């Protein structure tokens, strides 16, 4: 991998890292999610800097170029993250539905008691 490509990847990874920390600071990203992104970005930086390791992975994957192995790894991480977030969204949707159902039934009961009290 050329020095220019290495530089671009590292700069981009660092920008992502800064953005993730900024979101963490503003409480727009949880500590758990930050940890996931941290693992991904640091892995990419290590593989970009440590060329022999990337060449070994390239051989292991059977890809033609080390950069392709890096892309494959990055894409796999992103896919895993997408599956994780799809699962999270489903869980949150179900929790939201359960809460909305609970609130609506509870409000119905409260309204009935209030109406009875007003009639007396």
């Amino acid at each position, binding site marked *: 991998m050329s020095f220019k490509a290495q530089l671009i990847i590292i700069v981009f990874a660092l920008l992502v890292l800064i953005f993730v920390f900024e979101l963490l600071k503003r409480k727009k990203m949880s500590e758990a999610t930050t940890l996931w992104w941290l693992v991904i970005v640091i892995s990419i930086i290590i593989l970009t800097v440590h060329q022999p390791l990337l060449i070994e992975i390239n051989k292991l994957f059977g890809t033609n170029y080390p950069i392709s192995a890096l892309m494959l790894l990055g894409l796999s991480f992103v896919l895993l993250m997408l599956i994780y977030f799809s699962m999270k969204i489903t869980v949150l949707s179900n929790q939201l*539905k359960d809460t*909305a*159902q609970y*609130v*609506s*039934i509870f*409000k*119905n009961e409260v309204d*009935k008691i209030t109406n009875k009290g007003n009639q007396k």
Partner: protein
Amino acid sequence: MNKTLIIIPAYNEEDSIAKVIKEVQVAATLHDVVVIDDGSQDSTGKITQFMGVNTISHPINLGAGAAIQTGLIYACQNNYDIAVVVDGDGQHDPKEIPKLVDTLKERNLDVVIGSRFGGRAEYRTPLARRLGMHIFSLITLLLSKAKINDITSGFRAFNKKAIKYLINEFPLDFPDAELIILLVFSGFKIKEIPVNIRPRLNGTSMYSALRSFYYPLKVAISIFAVLLRKVLSRKYKAVQGE
């Protein structure tokens, strides 16, 4: 006497809901009625409350399945023996409610489905939808051996056992073929009887043109999910062994 609850799920049905409630109150005088206003943006909830009908209002739109599930949770919490679901769009003829309830009780069934086939019908189902219904009906028959012709009918009566089961398991999106397969695989006794299904009084069906592409795929994946959960799980074997 069995305590029966009529559940009317409604979303933006201000033009039809009053007529449906009046018809239900005439046809099923001894039964309690609850309207589930599924986060309507129009006056549906206000109309039902003004009419003095017990109304549960979702703060947001949760979908048809969740609205029915809310009604079933309410039925379970208030110890109802039977729950009948009647759509708020006026397609289900409330005069048929006693027929559903009587069949459920007399034949000792868990679920009775009101079918548009085999009886007099004021409404002719569009060809594309009929074709889709027949395909999913055939899939249901092959997978669960349950002969249900009107797979999309939402006109259903549930006994206490089915209510208790469905408060946690009710399918939320397009709750039809998936629900039938789920119930059959879980050991519930289901029967379909012919009833009068009418055209919608107002508004548009949830099986609209755009959704007609999504619907078969969603139902297919839902059936696959039920099979995964039921056939391959120990839970299914345990239920079957009971």
